């Protein structure tokens, strides 16, 4: 009987070794260990053996079974590895192929920069107010202390609405100052971004452009706060520790005192660096809200006070992102949009940064 077991073991081990593929190996396994397999058959004879033989034989038969199972498993692993290897070789693709496109659009710089501005002023407690593009003479001029036929009106190159001499395309977002102050009681703390219009078109002017107005009215805000607010804004917007600003006295009918603000910069032939250097570049107009304007909206200028400013959104977008020509903003040239646009997932925040 001992020989029988050894012969069986040797036969099966040889067959395992000789199995060239998984199917053959499985046949070998069935022939040896299956229900009618040779070892199974041998084990089945155990029952009819005398007890003194059964014990020794049974132990040996189990040893053989384990040896066969181990051999089968090892062989299976080897064959599976070889199989996988073959499949991998056959499955090769050209990874230099470009991936399938997943188009991602871009946001216009005006949108991104507007949201940057909102993020910064929101941090200073400003809300966002809006007003209509078409507004009346009262909101655009009269309430803002532009006397009729004053040369300052002429400077605005106003578009008028056909058949409605009282209506204009707003020449500035300052209209929203009036709307805000007339809509509810102070204090007011708003910025108002939006489209503005002037009938002027040349290399540096577009008949439509974007401004953001700022207005802060309470009982203690003075021009020093205006300086502080704009200095903080410019440092945050241009992403520098501080940015040199120069406040120059100027004139706007709706502020007194009035100032234009220049930002320190360095101009080279190839680039413009904001925040350093000895050149100055005008970026906005501002001032303390004129007492006549406060009176026009029913506020007592002896009690209420505050500042207002107006800044060109396109202009600061051009400065920050090095966009050379204002007119190209509105041409919807795909090459321009893709080049200067912003990825939609880059939401500007003051905690994560305004831009990459």
């Amino acid at each position, binding site marked *: 009987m001992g020989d029988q077991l050894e012969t069986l073991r040797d036969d099966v081990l040889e067959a395992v070794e000789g199995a060239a593929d998984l199917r053959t190996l499985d046949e070998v396994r069935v022939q040896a260990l299956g229900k009618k397999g040779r070892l199974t058959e041998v084990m089945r004879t155990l029952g009819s053996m005398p007890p003194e033989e059964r014990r020794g034989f049974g132990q040996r038969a189990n040893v053989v079974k384990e040896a066969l199972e181990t051999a089968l498993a090892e062989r299976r692993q080897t064959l599976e590895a070889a199989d996988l290897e073959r499949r991998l070789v056959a499955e090769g693709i050209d990874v230099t192929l470009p991936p399938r496109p997943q188009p991602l*659009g871009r946001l216009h710089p005006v949108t991104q920069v507007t949201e940057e501005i909102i993020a910064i002023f929101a*941090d200073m407690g400003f809300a966002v107010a809006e007003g209509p593009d078409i507004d009346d003479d009262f*909101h655009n001029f009269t309430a803002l202390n532009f006397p009729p036929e004053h040369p300052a009106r002429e400077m605005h190159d106003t578009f008028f609405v056909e058949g409605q001499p009282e*209506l204009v395309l707003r020449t500035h977002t300052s209209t929203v100052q009036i709307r805000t102050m007339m809509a509810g009681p102070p204090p007011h703390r708003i910025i108002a971004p939006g489209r503005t219009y002037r009938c002027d078109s040349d290399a540096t002017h577009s008949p439509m452009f974007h401004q953001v107005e700022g207005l802060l009215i309470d009982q203690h805000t*003075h*021009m020093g*706060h205006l300086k502080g607010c704009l200095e903080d804004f410019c440092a945050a917007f241009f992403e520098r520790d501080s940015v040199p600003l120069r*406040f120059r006295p100027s*004139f706007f009918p709706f502020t007194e005192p009035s100032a234009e603000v220049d930002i320190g910069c360095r101009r080279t032939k190839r680039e413009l660096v904001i925040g350093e250097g000895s050149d100055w570049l005008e970026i906005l107009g501002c001032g303390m809200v004129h007492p006549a304007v406060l009176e026009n909206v029913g506020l007592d200028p002896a009690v209420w006070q505050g500042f207002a400013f107006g800044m060109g959104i396109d202009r600061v977008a051009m400065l920050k992102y090095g966009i050379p020509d204002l007119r190209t903003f509105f041409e919807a040239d795909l090459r321009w949009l893709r080049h200067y646009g912003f990825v939609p997932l880059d939401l500007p925040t003051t905690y994560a940064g305004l831009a990459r």
Partner: protein
Amino acid sequence: MKVTLPWLREHLETNADAETIGWTLTAIGFELEGIEPRGADLDGFSVGHVTGVRQHPNADRLSLCTVDTKDGTFEVICGAPNVRLGMKGIFAPEGSVIPSTGTPLKRSTIRGVESQGMLCSARELGIGEDHDGIIDVGDEPGVGTPAAEALSLEGPVFDVAVTPNRGDGFGVHGLARELAAAGLGTLKEPDARPVEAAFATSRGVDLRFPHEARDACPLFILRELRDVQNGPSPAWLQERLKAVGLRPITALVDITNWSTLDMCRPLHVFDADKVRGDLYLRFAKAGETFRGLDDKTYVLDAGMAVICDDTGIVSLAGIMGGASTGCDEATTNVLLEMALFDPVRTARTGRRLGIESDARQRFERGVDPGFVLPAADYATRMIQTLCGGEAGSIVVAGCVPDNRRTIAFDRRELTRLTGLVLDDAEVERILGDLGFGTASEGEGRFVVSTPTWRHDCTRAADLVEELARIRGFDAIPATPVRRERAVGRPILDSSQLRRLRLRRALAARGLEETVTFSFIGEAEAAAFGGAQVRVANPISADLVAMRPSLLPSLAAAVGRNQARALDDAALFEVAAIFTAAEAGGQTWAAAAVRAGSATPRSWGEPDRPADALDAKGDALAALEATGVNLASLRLETSAPAHFHPGRSGVFKIGREVVATFGELHPGLAKLFDWKGRVVGFELFLDWLPQPKPAKIRARPPLSASAYQPVDRDFAFLVDATAPAGDLLAAVGKASDLIRDVTLFDDYAGKGVPEGKRSLAVAVRMQALDRTLGDADIEDVARRVTEAARQACGAELRQ
């Protein structure tokens, strides 16, 4: 406003250099736009005396000159035709930098002869255009006199921006006063001592304005001068005027220009011998004509103020004199006019006639009524100095209006509005230097009286500005703006939030955001419903209509991009569209278009043109981004006329159309120059229901079944025109066990009867409490089939 340093120094005793003056002007509100050196860069150039002229041995047109200079005698080659023995010119030594080129002069050899310097032309020195000959400085200047001095050059020239509220800044004297107040020196008062009258002026003046319009000309002063000798002005005046951009004409005319700039006091000189009778002023009648000094004829409107003699209009008040009575070289008798004209009328007349004159510029901003009468003597003295003659008496019509105001001022107002603190003495010093009168009432209070030239100062805030700008805005302490709470709060309203999310959602779908003009052409607007609002004064015909839709702008952008071979355009815009000619007659809209391929051409995807359903997808994505409940949308197939009638639809909420989508009407392709088909959508944000403020952020609990789902596919045969949407909706509602319904095939053709289509639907069913058995599945299948049949007569495909 241009002003030269020497001119400024006639009004300001100062040691300040040009740079300091320029910087200070900006710091006090007169922005320096530039400094032109005009002779300030001529150090090293000096007068040379030509003591010998010989023919160049090797060149016919060149002369070999011997020039005596302060540094010795040099041999200089000169090509100028006007060079002659004994003349004095401007000598540039070797190494000097020529202003016109900015390069140093090198020793050179011309046709074998060495030149040891250069005799300069006006253009080479950057002081004129003359290049035909070298400068001839006359006999007077000695050899070695610095060029700038020999040429009486008026440099440097400041170019100053004057704000519209500061008429007084349009005079050299006014700027000098500002600089003096800013601490740069002492103001010199003009010499306006009376010039004694030698005879009685022979002409009268009459102001014939209606009483209620007498402010058209409150004051008109006339003075006759006899036996003057007109002719070219002296060199210094010519140079002074040239330096600030004016063309010298004759002494009399030059004096009027000089006065306009010097004291911001426009004058006019009539040739007395050409004026018939007395002068009178009145309003023009509509259609009257006037021939100006510029030799142009103007047709006047009623209400324009004019000056007349017996023959008719001889001058347009405050704007321009007339051709018929102008002075020329032969003029010997003069009527000198000094007047005040109403700023508003002057501005209106000038604007109406398109005349920009230095006089108009000053009158419309308001001149100093206190310097009309003194100017009669100030100007007369200058005329007599330059042209001789005798002065007549002063004839006055009207009277000097009293425009001085008193303002109660508390210097704490400065602190309240600017944060600056000045003491009483500083307040009085600054206001005093600017010409204000101050009377202290103690405790920081003053009664301030305004000077006659300051029309802009009417209230305390104006004085705050005066004090702050002269003290310097730099001194204002920058103070941070504090926020009420430590943590910021959301500040966007629902409309702003919707636009923010919408933009990012659409860009994430591969659409490029554009910003295009709010005005478009009439035809483009007409194609999209027609403009409700138009611009009365458009800059061009294609920017006249306030757009009734964003789609025409995007459609035009597609055409422009396709013209540059960018055929696959996917563009969107979020902006206002205009619905009525009234303030606020507009609504927020979002729109997108796609043209060309739906996805970029690639090896991995079949090339498919964008179609109406892509636009529908964009529309739904946009609606979803706004937070609208998509289940509340109702789709109808009645889209506006700018869409393809068979490939478009609208989404409604209640009765309101909130969005339109589809293929843009192919008939518009020609108007917008687009190739192929263009699809798009437009969403009207203001018609969407207001979002309900979320009280609870917590989501309902997730009910995910632990049991296996079952997927079954159904193929339905329906009429070709039956809406798939109805079928899907019906199937979805067929049983509570249905979790998901997906249309995975829409087929017509072989195997499907004519007039029918096959819609294949995958249904996933699942129960929360058990594994579905065969009976459940059979029941759902039966309900699905029945629902489909009822919804659109669908039959299960065998």
